[in-house]
C-alpha cells in the first residue's frame, strides 16, 4: 500500500478517536480540517478497501433526511494506529512553499 497522505492520516486519527461512535461527513471535515472535496474521495477509498464501514442512519428529529455515517473497521483501526498524523511543517517551510 502506498504511503498515506497527511489528510488521510488526520481523518483516520479523528475516526480512531471516535472509536465505536459513528461520524458524519460534515462533522469529519470540520474535525479534521479537511475540505469535503478531499474527504469524500478518501472515505470512498477507505470503504472500498475495507478500512471503513458505512451505514444510513435515520434522523432523531422528524422531517430531517437520513445521514450516512462512518466508523473504522478492525483493519481500519490498525491502519490508523500504524499511520498517526505527522508533525506539522515548520512555518518557515510553509512560507518557502508559498513563494515557490
Amino acid at each position, binding site marked *: 500500500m502506498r504511503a498515506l497522505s497527511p489528510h488521510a492520516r488526520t481523518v483516520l486519527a479523528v475516526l480512531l478517536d471516535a472509536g465505536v461512535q459513528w461520524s*458524519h*461527513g*460534515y462533522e469529519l*471535515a470540520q474535525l479534521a480540517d479537511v*475540505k*469535503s*472535496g*478531499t*474527504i*469524500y*474521495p478518501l*472515505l*470512498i477509498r477507505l470503504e472500498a478497501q475495507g478500512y471503513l464501514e*458505512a451505514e444510513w442512519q435515520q*434522523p432523531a428529529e422528524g422531517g*430531517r*433526511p*437520513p*445521514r*450516512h455515517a462512518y466508523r473504522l473497521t478492525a483493519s481500519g483501526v490498525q491502519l490508523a494506529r500504524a499511520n498517526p498524523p505527522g508533525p506539522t511543517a515548520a512555518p518557515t517551510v510553509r512560507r518557502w512553499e508559498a513563494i515557490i
Partner: protein
Amino acid sequence: MSAGLRRRVTDLACRALQAILPPSLQSWGWAVRCEAASIPDDTKALLFTLDSLCGLMPRAVASHLLYPFASLIGDGAPLSEGSSIMNIFHATMRRPRALGIASAIGAVVLGIVYMAIAGAPMRYLGINAGALVIGLTMLALLGRPVAAGQRWTGVAIIAIAGMLLATAFLGSEVEGAARWVKLGGLAIQPSLILLPVMLVAFCRTRSLPATAGIVAAAAAIALQPDRAMAGMLALCLATLAVIRRDRHVVVALTASVASFAATLAHADTLPAVPYVDQILYSSFNVHAGAGLAVLGGSALLLVPAIVGWSRDADNRATYAVFGAVWFAAIMAAALGNYPTPIVGYGGSAIIGYALSLLALPKLAGASTGVGFGTVGTTDRSPSDHHLLVALA
C-alpha cells in the same frame, strides 16, 4: 444571494453530482445530498456541496472513461489482476467506441511525440493533452444512456448549422477566411469540432430538419470559406449516397457539392502554420521518428472505422461516414494548408474526434433496435439514444 437561492443552488449542485456519478457511487451522491440538507447554515451547505462536487467529479469522469475497459472482462466487473492483454485486445475490437477512445489517446500521444521531437513550445503539448481530456470528458458525460426523441437530432443539427453560420459572419477573420472563434485567449475552429458529429448524426437519422441543417451548414462552410471542411462534407455525403441513398441524402449531397465548388472558386491564401499544417511530409525532415509518429497517429484515426466495417455489418454506413470524415480531414491536410487532425497542434480536431465517437455503437454486432416511430429515415441501434441526447 438570498438564502432560498443558496439552497436551490445547493440542490442543483447535488443533482449535478448525482447525474455524473456512476451507479456504483450513487449512494455517495445521496450521502453528500443528505449531509448538505442537514447543515443549518445555507452558505456552509452550499460550500460543502460545491466542494464535494469538485472533489468527486474527477473520480466520476474517470469511472465513465474506464467503464468500457472495466467491462471488457464481462458483467461490468472492474479489471482484475488476472485479465490478460489479449482478452482486453479482443474485447476492445468488439467495442468500437472503446477502440475509438484508444485510437484518440494513441494519436494524441504520437502527436505529442512529434511535437516534442520537432521542438514545439511546451504550451502546444499541454493544449493538445488538455483538449484530449476535455474531449473524453464530454464524451463520457454526453454518452450516458438517456432516452430521447429522434426529433431532437434535427434540432441539434440545425443548431450546429446556426453556430457555423455565426462563425462565418461573426468569427475571427484571417486573410479573408472566417473560421475561428476566440475563446479564453485561444482560437478554436467550430467546424472541426461540430461538423464530424453532425455528419455522423445525419447518417444515423435523416429527416427534413436535419437535411435543412446540413444545407445551412454547407452554406456556412462556403461562406467561411473552408475548402477542407467542404470537401469533408461532400465526401461523407457521397459515401452515404452510395450506401444509403434517399431524398434527404441527395439534397444534402447537392448542397455540399455546391459548397465545395464555391470554396474551389476562392483562392486559398492562408500560409502554413508551424506544427499545424504541412506536417505529414515535413515531419520526416525533422526526424524519421517524428514522421512515423505523425503517420502512425493519422492511421490510428481510421482504425475504428476499418475494424467496425469488417466486424459490424449492421452499422456499416456509420463506420463508412466516420471513416470518410477523418480520411477527408487527413487528405485536406496532405493537399493544402489545413490542420493535420489530432497529431498536429490544435485542440479543435481532438475534441471533434472525441465527440464523433458518440455516433459509434458501444458494442459491435449488437442487434438493431426498434421503436423510433417518427418522421424521417433512421438507421437504428442501441447507441442512437446516446447520440440523440448528446446532440440535443
